[in-house]
């Protein structure tokens, strides 16, 4: 990793007896798009607010280019932020909203004009300059908010669930817009969301929050393909967890016994396990195949339901132990067609399955 641009050092925030953030430490290099992902109440927004200066942390520090931000009031931090709700100034036109940060900085009129024009073209709202915010759609308002937050070239842009108030189609449209703007401006972005798809789509790296701690930080691929804990595996993507018993691990490849008594070998073990220890085997729905493959492990299931989802089929099956699992095979269309209710074997690559403590 390059030298840290923004550093969060052992940040802790307690509200009375409840600790929202537990000693979070994080380094963010310049230009990175980092997402704080996690369920509500996991401390991701609280961490963001500490960076913005809306909440003073109980302990710890936030450093921007090695200088602490904590003693700097919000209005002097020079940070850009886009909020969950539309926070445009309702009495000012779109152009005046974007000009606002420049006007309070008393920049010369010519510079304000030029910058506002640049920003409105960046978010493609040149023709809306004289409108009032109330005359814009939700997506347009968030684009104005983005333009306003970037108008003063802040070193960091904070985004607190900026798309959660928008419908799915608009969300995807603005996501593309945000990616493009990140590419074009090179601004460092800290993005908060509870939507894992949004996080995977947008981010360079994702910090997955759970109960005020960072459970795992890494690229989307890291979190998806190499989850550190069962929480990560469960939160990123879809997962099936099968109850298993650990038998032995040799060179990180574990052998377990399934509930129906069959054995599976060559599984990725996270940590070390005792012989006979209860474990959970995580298999992604898309890791299942309906046709036999070399080195494939197999699982006896009863297919309960097959649903068509456009790009793929979703199969609901039940193991012989009675547990329902989700299967979304990526295999050829021909093999998918064979899926019909009834008993059969399904196959998976044990190298793409993970073992966690129960």
């Amino acid at each position, binding site marked *: 990793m390059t030298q840290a641009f923004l550093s969060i050092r052992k940040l802790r925030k307690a509200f009375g007896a409840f600790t929202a953030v537990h000693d979070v430490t994080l380094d963010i290099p310049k230009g990175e798009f980092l997402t704080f992902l996690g369920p509500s109440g996991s401390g991701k927004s609280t961490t963001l607010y500490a960076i913005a200066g809306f909440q003073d942390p109980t302990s710890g520090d936030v450093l921007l280019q090695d200088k602490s931000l904590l003693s700097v009031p919000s209005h002097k931090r020079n940070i850009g932020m886009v909020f969950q709700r539309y926070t445009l100034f309702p*009495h000012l036109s779109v152009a005046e909203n974007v000009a606002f940060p420049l*006007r309070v900085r008393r920049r010369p009129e010519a510079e304000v004009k030029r910058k506002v024009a640049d920003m409105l073209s960046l978010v493609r709202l040149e023709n809306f300059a004289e409108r009032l915010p109330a005359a814009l759609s939700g997506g347009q308002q968030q684009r104005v908010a983005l333009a*306003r937050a970037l108008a003063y070239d802040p070193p960091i842009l904070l985004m607190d669930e900026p798309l959660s108030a928008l419908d799915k189609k608009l969300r995807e449209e603005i996501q593309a817009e945000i990616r493009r703007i990140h590419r074009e401006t090179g601004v460092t972005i800290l993005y908060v969301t509870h939507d894992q798809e949004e996080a995977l789509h947008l981010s360079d790296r994702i910090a997955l929050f759970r109960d005020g701690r960072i459970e795992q930080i890494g690229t989307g691929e890291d979190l998806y393909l190499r989850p550190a804990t069962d929480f990560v595996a469960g939160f990123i993507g879809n997962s099936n967890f099968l109850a298993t018993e650990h038998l032995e691990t040799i060179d990180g490849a574990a052998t377990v016994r399934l509930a129906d008594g069959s054995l599976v070998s060559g599984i990725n073990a996270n940590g070390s396990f005792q012989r006979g220890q209860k474990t959970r085997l995580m298999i992604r729905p898309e890791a299942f195949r309906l046709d036999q493959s070399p080195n494939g492990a197999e699982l006896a299931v009863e297919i309960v339901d097959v649903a068509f989802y456009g790009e793929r089929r979703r199969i609901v099956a039940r193991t012989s132990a009675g547990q329902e699992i989700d299967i979304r095979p990526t295999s050829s269309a021909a093999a998918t067609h064979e899926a019909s209710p009834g008993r059969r074997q399904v196959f998976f690559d044990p190298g793409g399955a993970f073992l966690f403590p129960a």
Partner: protein
Amino acid sequence: MSVEAQQGIATPRIPAGLGGLLPALILIGLFFVVPVLALLLRSVTDPAPGLQNYAALLGDGTYARVFFNTFLVAAVVTIVTVLVAFPVAWMLAIMPAALASILFGIIILSMWTNLLTRTYAWMVLLQRTGVINRALMGAGIIDQPLPLINNLTGVTIGMVYIMLPFMILPLVGTLRAIDPMTLRAAALCGASPLAAFRRILLPLSLPGIAAGGLMVFVMSLGYFVTPALLGGTSNMMLAEMIAQMIQSLLNWGLGSAAAFILLVVTMALYALQLRLVGSKRAVGGA
């Protein structure tokens, strides 16, 4: 043609509606329109037909002083009320709803307390040997009692106290509609608390200030009890003058003319308020 068509649809409804409205129209006519017309009539006929009552009121320096003083007191009271009410309204707007409703209850309760009682209470507090002067002298802050009563200061204090709820209530409504996140956004944009207040909070609360301010101003123009009890003879207000003209001088014509001028000014201000509030709504809805 379309106008005719509309009228054609509308006309059959009017007689039916008019019949139902008749009692209300009679009531309004008898108790509101007729007295005002009688007032106007008297002001131009008593003691003799003509505009001499208005000429006397508008031409005489003494009366002009009373008019000026009335507007001065109303303006000072309105400004001070806005200054006091704004922080109170802001606190009420941002505090937890349960606590705010208790404080609202207290404010409303004070409105229901007898006006005379409250004004006499201020006399007790403000007079030369009153609680405030004795406390200040006892603390050694002043040597001589401050002149807090029978002057503009006394009238302002007493009237601001009475007018506060009429300012606070509309202002809280306006301030509550402002998303506090907007102010956080302003701060992150680089606006100091003062700049955020001046450029964001104040412009957004102007409709509330205008509505409350005009109401306070109009009510203050015609106020009688408080200026009569807390004010001095040198700064008499219009309502007091009308009372004197009718009660002491038995000059009904002059009193009617003064009352009518007050009515016209009040209505003009009310029309202005309607225009302002109306146009604000139009902007907000656009």
